[in-house]
């Protein structure tokens, strides 16, 4: 092998290597470190006293953690489901040569640009029965109207879903819209000449073609659902009681405010494993396909 050829082969790897090393240390190294911490008696700061599975046992004894897991199941399912459905419907509607599309699109996208430190207060007001939507609708004369989910132990988690959907459904819409615009118009024309109705056309032809976007949307949404932290803190701070605790808020509070870093690390490990269980099969199916086959 000539030195030029060697160089041509090596250079790409060389270019990639700094990023790879960074990711290896700062992501996988830190994950491993969390794994180690979860086996130690760390309290306020990391410590190296090995205690085996004790933190995990403690974790699964906590009612609180069960609540967090249940909430994640409810929240994750509804959030991903509603965002996907809403994003798809809005994208299809917006794709019908709508007047003012240029105005509507940024309107639906902007929530993604705001952090919940910013919008949390507005949402809290809006959902508060005393000054928010309940009071407003009542002042319109519908005195029977009630909307006090945020104050209700069993319903509060759904208000978190509403705010989360508000934040990211526009983004999902943009993804679907991009997909729709990428579909070849000829295929649709052909289908319509065959006499397919609009609904049938979308169900049979268009939506199946958007399959890769469903997958991408799922990954983006799943990662946001699992990381949801600011949202809960700003909206309910885990309340009423501890009814809206999610794994991310649980982990933060055990690691940093309750001085039980070991338990916090154990919950982080469980969280990572949950993420892996969802994402790895997706990655695997994606990466198995040969180059050129994708799209």
């Amino acid at each position: 092998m000539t030195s030029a050829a060697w160089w041509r082969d090596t250079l790409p790897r060389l270019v990639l290597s700094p990023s790879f090393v960074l990711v290896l240390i700062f992501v996988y190294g830190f994950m491993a470190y969390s794994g180690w911490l979860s086996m130690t008696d760390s309290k306020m700061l990391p410590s190296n006293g090995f205690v085996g599975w004790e933190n995990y046992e403690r974790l699964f004894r906590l009612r609180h953690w069960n609540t967090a897991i249940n909430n994640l199941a409810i929240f994750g399912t509804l959030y991903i489901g509603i965002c996907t459905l809403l994003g798809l419907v809005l994208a299809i509607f917006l794709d019908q040569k709508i007047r003012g599309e240029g105005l509507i699109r940024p309107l639906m996208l902007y929530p993604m640009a705001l952090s919940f430190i910013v919008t949390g207060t507005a949402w809290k007001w809006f959902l508060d029965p005393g000054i928010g939507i309940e009071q407003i609708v009542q002042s319109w004369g519908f005195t029977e109207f009630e909307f006090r989910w945020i104050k209700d132990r069993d319903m509060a988690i759904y208000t978190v879903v509403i705010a989360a959907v508000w934040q990211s459904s526009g983004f999902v819409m943009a993804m679907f819209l991009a997909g729709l615009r990428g579909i070849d118009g000829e295929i649709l024309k052909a289908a319509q000449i065959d006499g397919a109705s609009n609904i049938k056309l979308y169900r049979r032809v268009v939506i199946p073609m958007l399959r890769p976007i469903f997958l991408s949307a799922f990954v983006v949404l799943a990662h946001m659902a699992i990381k949801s932290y600011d949202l809960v803190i700003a909206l309910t701070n885990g309340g009423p009681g501890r009814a809206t605790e999610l794994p991310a808020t649980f982990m933060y509070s055990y690691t940093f405010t309750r001085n039980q870093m070991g338990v916090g690390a154990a919950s982080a490990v469980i969280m990572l494993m949950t993420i892996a269980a969802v994402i790895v099969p997706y990655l695997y199916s994606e990466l198995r396909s040969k180059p050129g086959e994708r799209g």
Partner: protein
Amino acid sequence: MLKKLALATAIAASMGANAADQVEVLHWWTSGGEAAALNVLKDDLGGNGVTWQDMPVAGGGGEGAMTVLRARVTANNAPTAAQMLGFDIQDWGAQGAAADLNDVAAAEGWDAVVPAALQRFSKYDGKWIAAPVNVHSTNWVWANKAIFDELGLGMPLNFDQLVDALDAIQAAGYTALAHGGQAWQDATLFDSVVLATGGVDFYRKAMIDLDEAALGSDTMKMAFDRMAKLRSYVDDNFSGRDWNLASSMVINKEAGMQIMGDWAKGEFLNAGQTPGEEFLCFRFPGTAGAVTFNSDQFVMFAVGDDRQSAQGQMAKAVLSPSFQSAFNVVKGSVPARTDVSDADFDACGKKGMRDLADANMNGSLLGSMAHGHAAPAAVKNAVYDVVTAHFNGEFSSDDAVAELVAAVADAQ
């Protein structure tokens, strides 16, 4: 990369320039009156040539700041001083990260003027590591005087009288008790109720010594029953409400009273009200003579030799009578030393200072569980879990007692 390095060196250079005369202070007093009050300290130090580098991180009663502190200490970049509460101070002392202030303390005679109950937190292993800024007391009731006058109510002296008063207020169509449903607020109520129900010794046994028998006792069950009773006077809309909004309900004559620490006074004063004229302050019925407290302190961290003199000056300034008076007049709390003149304080403040001095003499100055001065963070939060779940109707009082015993045992 080059640019980044250049930037880093530039920053390092600018920091090295005159580090000797600087104090970097991590705190969560970020806005309004309390930040302005802290300015008094900054100017004080500025007069002595010490520059104040401000490092505020607000949120959750210092939770954000404590997380940041951990990152800073881990990175070997500890601030000169950090605001802290209760057991956190001791935890940092145990990490060996704190400075030794014994020289300043000896020169200023802190041992003689700071109440022993505070020293228990400010000293670790016989060493002064923190300078207390104030003492808040948490067993206060704030009441709307107009409502009390209208209904001919006097100051309730025990729990039954409190219930009578609450009944009367509710019957008159007001919200009887203004309360915000957040774990720490529920726990603040719980502090007072436990103290009123079981008395000073019981409180100390249950909340400070974490004695299993006391935690599981019938007295504790009665305390939970009383919590449930109080819950029945709170409006349905209470969940998640900030404490200051609860205060404004009292201010605006929508609610009869609020049970809250002395920082609530600031809200009333800001609304242009005067103690004794538009609002009343009294101790939670049945807790007169005792004070549950929490105290903000500045913990000093070990710094290089070149920075120690500035650090010492700051510690000295924090406990100087002039700053103690100026700061606490604004903050609603009372000075952390017992020899400060009460001339500048209002009626509630004067009463607070008297109560503190008395409680200090009688041994009834008790750390507040809700505010991290009775037990370490893990236990405190375990108590929060049970109290707030019970207050929100998840547990009966019997279950709550059993859960409390188990949760406290599990958290230790």
